[in-house]
């Protein structure tokens, strides 16, 4: 009996230790999910008490959001509740699972979600799957109130439009800037690059001199996750002036420009933070904010994180420039719309009027400013937000201008219904090129062939 008690207490101890370990480890990011840990306290200012009765008192909706946007969506839910009396339940899922969750919710008939967050390249698939309510009429009715023309033009249509109809509201205007550590670049005598060749040389110079001290010229996110790997590749693809399709809609992914872009990426790998093939958000972010990495291409909210004393050692020591350009006649500094999210309404929404009301609230210009002045994982979708004083003060005027410039004219990923499959094929082949199991030419030829098959061309 005594033995049993002791064994039981040991088992209990082991179980407690295991649970503690798992609890501690839970926030650590899987490679698949963009988990940018924001440790700064979120200050949500309360709206003054309304004097009129709240119009949606006692009603509620469920909003499906991704983990990196949980803070922002919860803040919006709180403000909406204060204004309308309606309760908004925020349901958070990992980024990688948001599309399947939305589709399964509708196909199973569960109808758990009223409002759904959409990774915009999945828009066509969600429309084809019958998941989203057609918002064309709603947009027509609210065009002036929501100041549609104030949305950044490069994102307004890709985020919302499929086959001439509008299905969503822009929510998170994501694009990349090239962030650099000013101190490191000065120390090793290099300037922020304007071309990908300069970038490679700058990265090489810093890495060759600093490697023994754990310093690397650049961090390249090459982990085999579509949103990570393709963002990295498409940054170069755009720099070289390549595109996915020609004017007739035929794939051109193995064009000389595209092959040169992939070759450039492969050539940069030896000088990057090891090993780029396993570097995802956390590794790149950690390397940059701890001052070990000279340059990183990242979403614009890295500026806020780099100035956060709780997670950064490079406060005030960083800068950001537009993405470098490639070589050749079509070369241009043309950023890509990497990531980027919208909000839509589920066809099975239990409370559609309230869901529309929530979208109307989120779409308001003043709310766009307000939600982008907390560290909540969002970036502006409106031109006016970039110019709004509270936002400029929050992120620094330099970053606000750089982000605005990057978003205007940014290149959108395809949004057709076949894109999920095409994207996976491209990810697979770019990963093979990075691993050295295919040449860039071979990888993109294989992609082209498969894309033609998928599109039935």
């Amino acid at each position, binding site marked *: 009996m005594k033995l049993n008690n*002791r*064994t039981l207490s*040991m*088992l209990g*101890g*082991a*179980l407690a*230790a*295991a649970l503690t*370990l*798992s609890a501690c*480890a*839970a926030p*650590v*990011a*899987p*490679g*698949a999910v963009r988990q940018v840990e924001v440790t700064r306290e979120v200050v949500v200012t309360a709206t003054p008490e309304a004097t009129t009765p709240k119009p949606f008192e006692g009603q509620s909706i469920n909003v499906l959001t991704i983990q990196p946007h949980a803070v922002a969506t919860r803040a919006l839910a709180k403000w909406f509740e204060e204004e309308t009396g309606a309760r908004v339940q925020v349901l958070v899922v990992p980024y990688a*699972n948001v599309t*399947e969750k939305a*589709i*399964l919710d*509708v*196909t199973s008939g569960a109808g758990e979600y009223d409002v759904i967050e959409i990774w915009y390249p999945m828009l066509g*698939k969600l429309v*084809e*799957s*019958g*998941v989203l309510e057609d918002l064309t009429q709603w947009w027509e009715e609210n065009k002036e109130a929501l100041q549609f023309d104030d949305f950044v033009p490069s994102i307004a249509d890709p985020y919302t439009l499929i086959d001439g109809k509008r299905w969503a509201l822009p929510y998170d205007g994501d694009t990349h800037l090239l962030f650099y550590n000013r101190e490191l670049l000065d120390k090793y005598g290099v300037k922020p690059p304007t071309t990908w060749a300069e970038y490679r040389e700058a990265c090489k110079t810093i890495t060759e001199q600093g490697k023994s001290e*754990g310093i690397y010229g650049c961090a390249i996110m090459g*982990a*085999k*996750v*579509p949103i990570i790997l393709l963002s990295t590749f498409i940054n170069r693809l755009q720099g070289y002036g390549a595109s996915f399709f020609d004017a007739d809609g035929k794939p051109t992914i193995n064009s000389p420009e595209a092959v040169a872009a992939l070759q450039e990426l492969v050539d940069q790998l030896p000088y990057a*933070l*090891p*090993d*780029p*093939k*396993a*570097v995802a958000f956390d*590794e790149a972010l*950690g*390397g940059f904010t701890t001052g*070990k990495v000279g340059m990183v291409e990242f979403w614009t909210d890295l500026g806020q994180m780099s100035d956060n004393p709780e997670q950064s050692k490079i406060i005030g020591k960083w800068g950001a420039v537009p993405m470098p350009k490639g070589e050749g006649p079509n070369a241009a500094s043309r950023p890509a719309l990497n990531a980027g999210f919208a909000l839509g309404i589920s066809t099975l929404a239990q409370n559609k009027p309230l869901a529309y009301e929530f979208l109307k609230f989120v779409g308001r210009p003043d709310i766009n400013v307000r939600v982008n002045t907390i560290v909540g994982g969002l970036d502006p979708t409106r031109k006016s937000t970039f110019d709004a004083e509270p936002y400029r003060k929050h992120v620094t005027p330099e970053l606000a201008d750089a982000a605005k410039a990057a978003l205007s004219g940014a290149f959108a990923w395809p949004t057709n219904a076949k894109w*999920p*499959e095409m*994207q*996976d094929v491209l990810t*697979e082949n770019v*990963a*093979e090129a*990075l*691993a*050295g*199991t295919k040449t860039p030419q071979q990888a993109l030829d294989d992609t082209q062939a498969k894309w033609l098959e998928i599109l039935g061309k």
Partner: protein
Amino acid sequence: MHTLHRQHRREILWMVGPAVLTLIVFSLYPLIYSIALSATDSQLARPFREFVAFKNYTDAARDALFGNSLVLTFIYAFGVTAIETIIGFGLALLLNRESGPTRFARTLGLLPFITPPVAIAAIWRLIYDPSSGMLNHYLVRAGILEQNVAFLGIPGLAMASVMLVDIWQWTPFVFLLSLAVLASLPHEPYEAAAVDGANGWQQFIHITLPMCLPGLLVIAILRLIGAMKVFDLVFMLTFGGPGSSTQVASFYIYKVAFQQFKTGYASAMTIIVIIVLSVLVTLLTALYRRAQAKYGP
């Protein structure tokens, strides 16, 4: 007498019924659903869209990525099963005695396999980190490595690194079951062998190992089935990369089903994996029966 018999039959029905119903609902129904789905051009949002008969199966047979993922699954499953069985059984032999330290070791041994795989993968991701990971730190310090290595970024090494985590996680399971096997061995053969002058090694080779063989085969079958289904570690550690060097079958099927949304094709691949696994288990079970007949009680 007749009433009693009917009453008895009714009791049996009540007792067995729930189990049979559970089996039908949770095992047979999904299997039949998957088989039906595999014969259609289904998408996640549109199941049973168009009947395509065996097209998904012929596509799978031509799919180089699926073929590669099956090969990787075999390498992974047989590799970790063999190593876990050898180490687990070895540890069981060493700690097969009642004492404070061995009881503590046994309790400690439970830790890895009662910890959630997601937490394990997250911890090992930190351990493998090429910049600040513990493993690189100690290997460089010991002079085994000249410089830090990206364990999850080099094709050949990435697979070995994922396998190491599996081995760390599941060897204690094999160890505990091996202890149970050892505890069930009769004493008489050892007493007879001692009388005949057999030394420890001879007793191990001629008594312990043959008598443990059936039990070890059962443990190996259990681990093999588990390892063939590996998904969580790959998802968390490598996402199938670098290249496709760790893209095992379950992960590839997941990608096809939930990233490409081709559920019909994913179902066909699932059925192929089930068939392969069933053949494998049948062969191993036959081996177990032979071992049991030869060495069992």
